[in-house]
């Protein structure tokens, strides 16, 4: 049942991200709903489902966006694992730590992209700090809002 709910949530994330891309592209560029989903799952579920759902979210993002298939799957899997690990070591159920985690994902992803690009011999342009700051803030704000909504959904 939990997996079904998670699957529905992932479908909703896909739909919302597409709608944002169509109608609010500026917002879509500054927040990554798939990363927020992976962080949420990693903080609220055990690591096995978190890894599976995180990887699924990344692959869904790859399928929707014009990116290399597996790139976001790899990043979201790693993100879910790291956040899950941090969540098991630290108390991350408060607003500020969660904001910090969501903000950090904006930096984590380009760093992972850079590592993968180097490993695969591909060219990669690292985003500017301003862009990263905007993405971090966008992820943090939208993520906290999503967490707040999710907490109020019927279980």
């Amino acid at each position, binding site marked *: 049942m939990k997996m079904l709910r998670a699957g529905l949530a992932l479908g909703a994330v896909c739909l919302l991200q597409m709608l944002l891309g169509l109608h609010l592209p500026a917002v879509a560029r500054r927040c990554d709903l798939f990363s927020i989903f992976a962080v949420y799952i990693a903080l609220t579920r055990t690591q096995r489902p978190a890894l599976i759902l995180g990887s699924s979210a*990344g692959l869904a993002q790859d399928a929707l966006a014009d990116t290399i298939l597996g790139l976001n799957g790899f990043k979201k899997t790693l993100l879910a694992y790291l956040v899950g690990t941090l969540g098991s070591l630290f108390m991350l159920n408060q607003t500020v730590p969660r904001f910090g985690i969501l903000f950090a994902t904006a930096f984590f992803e380009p760093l992972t992209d850079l590592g993968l690009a180097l490993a695969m011999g591909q060219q990669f342009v690292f985003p500017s700090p301003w862009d990263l700051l905007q993405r971090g803030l966008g992820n943090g704000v939208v993520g906290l809002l999503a967490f707040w909504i999710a907490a109020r959904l019927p279980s």
Partner: protein
Amino acid sequence: MPRVLSQRKPYLLLFLLLSLNLILMASSVRGARGGSLLEETVMSVASPFLKAASWITSGVAGLWAHYADLREVELENRRLRAQVGSLTLEARAAEETRQEARRLRDLLALREEAGEGGIVAARVIARGASGPARTLLIGRGSSDGVSVNLPVISSRGVVGRVIEAAPGVSKVQSILDPNSGVAALLQRTRVQGVLVGEGGETCRLDFVSEGASVEVGDVVVTSGLDEIYPKGRILGLVVAVGEAQGLTRYVQVRPEVDLQRLEEVLVLRAPLTAAPGGEP
């Protein structure tokens, strides 16, 4: 906390998911050589094994091809040897046929010379049991019209005379027999004598007078005076001339016919015309 820690070790799942995504990426990303990164990675990882496999395969294939070549060469060698053997037999048979044809052609010339009924061709079926062929057995006898004292010749010269005639087989006394005697003369000087066998491989020309001109190499032919052998048939060549012993001298003659190798002969029932060599 312990439950959480126990759940913090899904390393295998993490590894599998990351690997899956990496594989997906690698299959999508194009490499420096234009192929997908996955293909290039797999190729570079597998290339040593592929090279080793190729080396082994080519080595085995080479060995097999070498073995197959050797096998084929061996088979061909056997086939060629068999062919050589077969051809050798054929060549020998052809040579035998050729020689036989030559002999028979010569005999046929004699037969034509004697007329259809004046000559009987016969095969030599046996020779004297020991030493030079003093006597011969031929495959024609009284039932073929062969009778005692008929001369026996071959294409090269005189062989001897019939001394016994049975139905189907006859015994021929060759000119090598010490009991034989053939009236003869030297073709060059017309010196006459009697050719007698010495019991070996040569004959002796008796009754040659001391002053007769005889030289080694002189041809000895029949004189026809014995009324057995036709005149002018070659008997042999003078191979040695001895010093005078009283009134005569010793003249050794080697028969022209090789009696050891004789295979076909002619028995003359009617007298042949004189051979051209019979007259000087």
